């Protein structure tokens, strides 16, 4: 058994974790201002922006993958610019995967943060303005520190969702070992070549990791709520 486990190629997992970590960090930074804006704005364009950020939840991954492939390819404006100036190709590369994952997982970061901001006591935010603090200072020192469970939830769900992505990754990244062949793609390939033994090991590892991540989130939330309840 141990022999089996040591002979398993773990690089797809490492790649999956690297992709998920980088995506979660980038999305965390991008989503903070977006979700703060969505939570505080009274603008009429809010529903439109909300619908756009939620699109990846309902779009078939193949549709998102197709548009990303088209948008990132060397013949597109961005792709051509990057390949001619920096010699970077976005399709079938790790960088391309990161960009694709950022689109794919965006709602999983924006939505928890937005609901966290919306659930904040508005008087607390107003008290910060009255104290002479700007919107940015209020965001950094008052709003963000008071939505810690939402931050954790956003981070972990984004991480887990990126680990679990398959369709978009396959379309944009293909299956290049050590570059774009993440765990989910590796399992698909093993099943295709009927290597059920490795498919079982990989799938079981994914199952356990996913369960532990979610269990951690729910335990944390439960503890946090009971701490609030004691107030």
């Amino acid at each position, binding site marked *: 058994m141990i022999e089996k486990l040591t002979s398993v190629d773990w690089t797809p997992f490492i790649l999956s974790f690297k992709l998920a970590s980088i995506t979660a960090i980038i999305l965390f930074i991008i989503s903070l201002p977006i979700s703060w804006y969505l939570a505080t704005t009274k603008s009429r364009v809010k529903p439109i922006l909300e619908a756009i950020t939620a699109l990846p939840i309902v779009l078939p991954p193949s549709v998102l993958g197709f548009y990303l492939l088209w948008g990132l390819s060397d013949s597109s404006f961005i792709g051509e610019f990057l390949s001619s100036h920096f010699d970077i190709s976005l399709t079938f590369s790790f960088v391309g995967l990161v960009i694709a994952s950022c689109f794919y997982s965006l709602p999983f970061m924006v939505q928890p943060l937005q609901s966290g901001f919306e659930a904040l*006591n508005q*008087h*607390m935010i*107003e*008290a910060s*303005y*009255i104290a002479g603090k700007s919107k940015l200072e209020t965001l950094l*020192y008052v709003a963000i520190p008071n939505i810690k469970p939402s931050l954790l939830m956003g981070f972990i769900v984004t991480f887990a969702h990126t680990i679990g992505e398959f369709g978009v990754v396959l379309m944009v990244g293909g299956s290049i070992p050590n570059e774009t062949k993440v765990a989910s793609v590796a399992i698909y390939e093993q099943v295709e070549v009927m290597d059920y033994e490795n498919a079982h090991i990989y799938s079981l590892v994914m199952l356990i990791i996913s369960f532990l991540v979610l269990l951690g989130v729910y335990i944390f939330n439960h503890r946090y709520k009971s701490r*609030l309840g004691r107030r």
Partner: protein
Amino acid sequence: MIEIDIYKILDGSSGEMPLEIKLEIESGSFLAIRGESGSGKSTLLRVLAGLSEASGRIVVDSEVWLDEGYSLDIQSRKIGFLFQDYALFENMTILQNLLFVNRDLTLAKRLLKLCELDKMSHRLPHSLSGGQKQRVALCRAMMRRPKLLLLDEPLSALDMDMRIKLQDEIALIHKEFGTTTLMVSHDFVEIYKLSNRIITLNSGKIIEDTTPQDISLKDNLLLDGVVLDIIEQDGKSFYLISVLNQIVKIESGDRKIEAGERVKLSSNSLAIDLGGSYV
């Protein structure tokens, strides 16, 4: 001197209603604002703070805060505001709550000492009682050395003992700093104890502008009550009336009042409690 002349359309429960307030307040005074809920009391405070928009003019100690096409932003108005729900920064300790407003440690310590909070300055808000939270909020509001202190029903969520303690502290702070203060309140004891002028709002307009002493003298002792029930006892008919969380029994006489009707009870004399038997 504070000059207020504002106009705003309010979205009330019974449709749109104009809020029209014209008011001059002497610097350093303590103004109480009372009125039915939805009469525009809180909105008036929010407009003064810059939290709600309105048209018109606001001048505070010859500094223009609001005028045609101009509105000084919230951050630049020197305001202290007390919300009913305290609105403390939950991620900061008591002392940090104060220093976040203004990094003046001497002032922070002075305020905490005044409100007897100096021994718990490193605690987080969630470990405090409602009364303690509101005292922290009061200290925090004073950290900007505000020109205007706005209190929006600050004591309504507290029990009677804590109310009295906080009333004393508000009075103390007002005496120490001489800040012009506007307080929305329904509690006449509170109003009488703290304010030197009282305005009553109804449907967005000032319908009365007087002093607490005048109101108390004019009305004598006038209490609002509701008839709960009419009972028969010893061949006589009595009303059971709910007033000030008590139930009183009053002989009905020739009056015809139905259960559920609102009534006013007035009295010119006092009954004296002699060891449980009433005279």
